[in-house]
Structures are given as structure tokens and as C-alpha cells.
């Protein structure tokens, strides 16, 4: 009987306003068959520091976060601050 643990990013979502959300699934396998799974979610806002983030997530952020997207998001944040 062998137990193994794997971690994989099983979901990456980009919202219309440029927020990137990803989910890391930790799977416990017993003799190759999954017996348990837990999730950890992370969300990243346009222009956020990407230090330490997975390479595939960074690539998506860099593609999604155009100057226009960043400017629009910053304007939205400013508007949210007053409500």
C-alpha cells in the first residue's frame, strides 16, 4: 500500500476586469487512486506583485494585465473606496 501526494493547479480563471484566480488541488492517492483532495485558492489583482507565483499563472497575468486593464481596475478600486 503506497500513499502519494500531488499538487496541481487545476483551475485558472480570468475575470472581465482582469482579476486572475487560481486553485491548487492537493490530492492524496492510495495505490494510484485518489482518496482525498483539498483546495487552496489564490486571487491576484491587476498589477499585483507576482513574486513567488507559479510560472503558468504569471504568464497568464502578464498577458491579461494590459495597461488599459490595469488603469480600469485602479479606477474601480478608487470608486470602491468610497462605498
Amino acid at each position, binding site marked *: 500500500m503506497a500513499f502519494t501526494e500531488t499538487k496541481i493547479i*487545476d*483551475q485558472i480563471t480570468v*475575470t472581465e*476586469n482582469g*482579476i486572475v*484566480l487560481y*486553485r491548487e*488541488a492537493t490530492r492524496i492517492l492510495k495505490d494510484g487512486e*485518489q*482518496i*482525498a483532495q*483539498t*483546495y*487552496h*485558492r*489564490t*486571487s*491576484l*489583482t491587476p498589477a*499585483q*506583485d507576482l513574486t513567488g507565483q507559479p510560472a503558468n499563472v504569471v504568464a497568464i497575468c502578464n498577458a491579461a494585465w494590459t495597461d488599459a486593464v490595469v488603469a480600469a481596475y485602479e479606477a*474601480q*478600486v478608487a470608486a*470602491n*473606496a468610497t*462605498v
Partner: protein
Amino acid sequence: MSIVLDGTNGITTNAGTLLSATTIGVGGTTPSASGAGVSFPATQSASSDANTLDDYEEGTWTPADGSGAGLSFANIQAQYTKIGRMVFASATFDFPSTASTATNSISGLPFTVGTTSGYIGGFITNGNVAVAVRFRPGNNSSTGSIRDGSGTAQTNVALSSGAFTINAVYMV
């Protein structure tokens, strides 16, 4: 008793009820091997029907500084549960010592907050800073801010060295 399987009605029983000793997977999901309950697809299959529960997920998340001041929180414990369109997210963390006058921003919420402001809210159940009373998730974002009783978002320095447990409840 009989059990009928067909392509139109799925599974029916002549008694009108369905019994599972352990778990049931919906949407083609492999039922969980542990406990007893309903297993939902790993990716939500959204239903437009008002009486259909179409998603359940629980996990952890990491609150981070979104103010731009480069602050690092410590002793983080954060969990979430999503039931249908509602998200319940909580986090305990220590705010660092800082002189930053930027408005605080807690980023990393596990799901994007919906766009309708009436359907979000948050509160602080533990904290040692008197001006920190509310946690306000931002519309259409994955961040929120710690606010005082009148709703004013606090500066980082006002929360310096504080210890907090924040709770957010919102619709996606």
C-alpha cells in the same frame, strides 16, 4: 421494490425515494471515497433554477496586502466555504508594524465578489484595534478593506501590529 434506469428520467425507484449508503456524485462526479454526502463537480455546472443547489466547495486561501505598501501578514489561517452562489471566507492574521499611510487593502479573497453592493458584508470577530470594526469586500473584486464603525477604510498605520479575524460573506 424496483429501480429503473433510463436515458430520460435517470434513476427512479418505485418508492419515490433514493437511498445511498455513502456518497452520491452529481454531474458525473466520482463520489467521494470518504464520509457520506453529495459530491459536486470540481468545476461548477451553474444552474439557472432557483431551487437547485449547484455548487459546494471548501478550502483555504491566503490573505495578502493589496495596498501597495508591500506588507507581509503573519500567523495566517484562512478558510472558505462556497455554497451555491454564497461565499463564506474567514481569515486570522497579524498585521505588521508599519508607518504606511496607504489605505489598507486585504487581497486574495477566494472568489470574485459580485457586482451588487447590497449582497456583500463582513465583520471582525477578533481584533485588538478599536477602529477596526468592519470588513468590507469590494464589488467586482477579490479584495476588501478593514473599516471603522462609520465605514471609513483605515490606513495601514492605524492597523499597525494589530491581530485580526476577518469574516466575509458575499455573493459571487
